[in-house]
């Protein structure tokens, strides 16, 4: 099972980042190459000075959702950043920053966490996606 998986990761809240990290780790475990393209608020969450910060939850989470997420974390669930780090140890996981989003957020590659492998444009993203699945989160 080696069909590549490409994820356009746009959202910057912890719930959506975690959902993406779970998909990445699962695909990596199954031997599928994974290519993650960080756009907009997702890229902002990968800044090294705030990757471990609280990035909030999507509005639909509400108070009950907040409590549920906090309960999982206090039970030892790994952060999305840690899940991605672990995913990189078991498979081919390439995480690239969208160059437009780098301009938008006025970021330099040195501002980003080491999880981010590089900066690329959209043409490079589509080339790597090839004929595999593309997921937008």
């Amino acid at each position, binding site marked *: *099972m080696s069909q590549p998986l490409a994820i356009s990761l746009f959202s910057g809240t912890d719930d959506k980042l975690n959902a993406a990290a*779970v998909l990445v*780790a*699962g695909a*990596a*475990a*199954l*031997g599928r190459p994974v290519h993650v393209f960080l756009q907009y608020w997702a890229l902002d969450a990968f800044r090294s000075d705030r990757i471990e910060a609280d990035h909030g939850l999507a509005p639909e989470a509400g108070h009950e959702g907040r409590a549920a997420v906090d309960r*999982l974390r206090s*039970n*030892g*669930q*790994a952060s999305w950043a840690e*899940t991605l780090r*672990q*995913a990189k*140890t*078991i*498979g081919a996981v390439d995480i690239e920053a969208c160059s437009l989003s780098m301009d938008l957020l006025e970021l330099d590659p040195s501002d980003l966490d080491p999880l981010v492998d590089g900066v690329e444009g959209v043409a490079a993203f589509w080339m790597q996606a090839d004929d595999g699945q593309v997921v937008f989160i």
Partner: protein
Amino acid sequence: MTLLITHRLDARGLACPMPIVKSAQAIAGLVSGELLEVLATDPGSTKDFAAWARATGHELVEQSTPDDGVYRFVLRRK
């Protein structure tokens, strides 16, 4: 025949996808034919370990679900 299990992984209490991620890390350290026993409490693990074994080629030799909610899997490294 009793299986000779030489490697064990306690993934109890870990949420999806960590039981599979930790198992992938652990089995990478085995030589072909060696057995890894995994204990997990994630309710998705029965279907996950079957899918993971099918995709990777490692053999799921045994799986059991005791009454205490702990799932046990024995995998043979391909």
